[in-house]
């Protein structure tokens, strides 16, 4: 699980300055409207575009972002790895190495990566079935993820969970029932508070999930009990084939709770995601209770592998998002324009990312299936099992402690 790049990066992220987070409107400095990056002594500053954030009952975060060159490179590297990972999953599905449902986050990479660069390993993350990117950013290796997708014993859930159910320390899945992870996320925050941890929970759900009743039940309890939870609505504009506006009476998801403040941020911009999460995290860790973020983003592919994703939106729309809003190309441009990296360096990062994923894929393909003896493991904690679990027929019954 050792990944030098991202662990270094998260250390850097943790120590980065977050002092100018509140009261952004007054914090605009001399180069406010200039989007030209400023660069000195191994770090680079950007001013995010004016429409990056919208606030609801709270000031928006500062649009001035400074990061070290190293962080910037690491962020780019992680974006590229997540995309490569998803492309490998896509190809493997098409060659029938992966079964069942498989939901990719191609187009949405800035969300998991931006979040990871704003939080610590102590913070918790929980999300829906569209979880491969988060599994990676939360410490899962491409090999463990691809092996899980192929139902191998070396998979991150030992082949038992598949595409929708992946977990790492402080990443609580990988949940298949739309919206059901949201109360869980608040429960995780409850424990964090109860245990006196200096940590919060990033509680992600889609624009479709945002309408589930339990989301609103959770808002209420989270506020009532002042839980350190950041609700993050990952608004990719569609819940399966339903456009957000056809499912939500109010599709400004950051404004959907009158007693919890909200921020909408450009979820296609990794710096905006990171800044918004830093800001929200500060809010939570300050003891101010829950906050809602809406990250506007876009999935390029269909909802899952069996949905072509073209009957409810136009090809032009998808093409337009790809060519004008892509989180990776736009960040790449920033790095090149600011002189943080050359075209050549970027190319070599891309190549390395592909190589890393290709190697993981090759390894996963060779890995064995889970042993048959695993069927009855993990139903209960070892040593506390029920005496037996029946198989399909009496002879297949498995007895514990024997």
């Amino acid at each position, binding site marked *: 699980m050792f990944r030098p790049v991202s662990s270094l990066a998260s250390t850097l992220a943790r120590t980065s300055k977050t002092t100018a987070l509140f009261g952004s409107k007054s914090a605009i400095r001399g180069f406010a409207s200039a989007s030209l990056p400023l660069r000195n002594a191994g770090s680079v500053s950007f001013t995010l575009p004016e429409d990056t954030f919208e606030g609801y009952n709270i000031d928006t975060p500062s649009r001035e972002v400074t990061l070290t060159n190293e962080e910037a490179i690491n962020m780019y590297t992680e974006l590229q790895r997540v995309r490569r990972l998803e492309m490998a999953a896509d190809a493997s599905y098409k060659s029938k190495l992966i*079964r*069942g*449902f498989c939901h990719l986050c191609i187009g949405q990479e800035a969300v998991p990566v931006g979040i990871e660069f704003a939080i610590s390993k102590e913070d918790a993350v929980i999300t829906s079935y569209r979880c491969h990117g988060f599994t990676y950013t939360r410490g899962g290796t491409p090999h463990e993820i691809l092996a*899980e997708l192929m*139902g*191998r*014993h070396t*998979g991150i*859930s030992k*082949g*038992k*969970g*598949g*595409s*929708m*159910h992946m977990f790492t320390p402080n990443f609580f899945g990988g*949940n*298949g*029932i*739309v*919206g*059901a992870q949201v109360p869980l996320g608040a429960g995780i925050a409850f424990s964090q508070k109860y245990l006196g941890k200096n940590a919060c929970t990033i509680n992600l759900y889609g624009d*479709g*999930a945002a*309408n*589930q*009743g339990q989301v609103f039940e959770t808002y209420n309890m989270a506020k009532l009990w002042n839980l350190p939870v950041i609700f993050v609505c990952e608004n990719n504009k569609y*819940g*399966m*084939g*339903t456009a957000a506006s*056809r*499912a*939500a009476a109010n599709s400004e998801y950051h404004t959907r709770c009158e007693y919890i403040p909200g921020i909408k941020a450009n979820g296609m911009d990794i710096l905006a995601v990171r800044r918004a999460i830093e800001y929200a995290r500060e809010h939570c860790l300050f003891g101010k209770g829950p906050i809602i973020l809406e990250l506007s983003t876009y999935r390029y592919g269909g*909802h*899952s*592998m*069996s*949905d072509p994703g073209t*009957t*409810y939106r136009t090809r032009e729309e998808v093409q337009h998002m790809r060519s004008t809003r892509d989180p990776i190309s736009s960040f790449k441009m920033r790095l090149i324009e600011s002189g943080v990296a050359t075209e050549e360096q970027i190319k070599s990062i891309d190549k390395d990312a592909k190589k890393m994923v290709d190697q993981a894929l090759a390894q996963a393909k060779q890995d064995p*299936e*889970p042993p*048959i003896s*695993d*069927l*009855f493991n993990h*139903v209960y904690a070892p040593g506390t099992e029920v005496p037996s*679990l*029946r*198989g*399909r*027929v*009496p002879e*297949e019954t498995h007895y514990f402690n024997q």
Partner: protein
Amino acid sequence: MAFRISSSFGLSRSAASRLGMRMTFPRLSMAARYNSTTTETITVREALNSAIDEEMEADPKVWLLGEEVAQYNGAYKVTKGLLDKYGPDRIVDTPITEMGFAGIAVGAALSGTKPICEFMTFNFAMQAIDQIINSGGKTYYMSGGQVPCPVVFRGPNGAAAGVAAQHSQDYASWYGQIPGLKVVSIFDAEDAKGLLKAAIRDPNPVIVLENELMYGTSFPLTEAMKSKDFVLPIGKAKIAREGKDITIVAHSRPVQFSLDAAEKLAKEGISAEVINLRSIRPLDIDTIIKSVKKTNHLVTVEQGFPVCGMGSEISAQIMESEAFDYLDAPVCRIAGADVPMPYARNLEDLSLPTEETIYKQVKRVLNVQ
């Protein structure tokens, strides 16, 4: 979610013989098992679609709601074309809010209309189960018979392929336990058409359990099925294949496995009677009793968990009946394994009954090698 179209099965031999068709089906590939030029066929999906269509045409009070049912034509395309035909007032796309829209369906049913509430799969109906049971299933009784609830809850039930624990459960025995509900489980196109139409016409709340992996399967379209008044009685099982040595009772997709096993057993001189339950509640125990009195052996097959499952209930009812005295061997339950559904194929395979499982158990029960 998958919008996969599966066509795992062709017409079974027994289905053909039921129809009095003199045809032989070479046991070639599944797709080649049924030659569609010789007789008209219909898929389970089309049968469901036409059942809804005909009932909506006949009764303006019938309307349908659910996720992706209208503009997307259904997650599994069961409601294809209905929005175009009936418009958005009668074919209603909902947000992903199962408890809310199931409750709305019940409320509408209490007050003069006849909603068909589609769950994208029954796994998601767990979000709504309180409305189905507490509001849908009990209001008529609690009101002393004053407030009927003619609602249909339908959608795919049971395991699909490779979708792991949260998307692979069979709820037949869950709903089958509830007084006030009627529950049917669909195997073929005839069941689909006849039982869904019956469910829509029934003045009570009816749960219609379908199976995603059967949607694309073709079955013969009989003259009887073409009638707009083709309904099957809820509460009647069907003898899907006659036999004299052993009774195999199944519902949903395992009916096919049972028919295939019976076919294989026949080659060895074992004559198995296969009963397609069709109705979970009421359970047609009389048909099973009659069969057991003839065959003296009983095997039950389901994909659900074994504990408190359909097999448990059938076994108990057989014990309570005169058929008990006719049994030459204990009843054998074949069920899903008692574990959450694993993703990996090899483990998933061990979690679900197959033709082979049934074949072997029949021989074990009959004590033949």
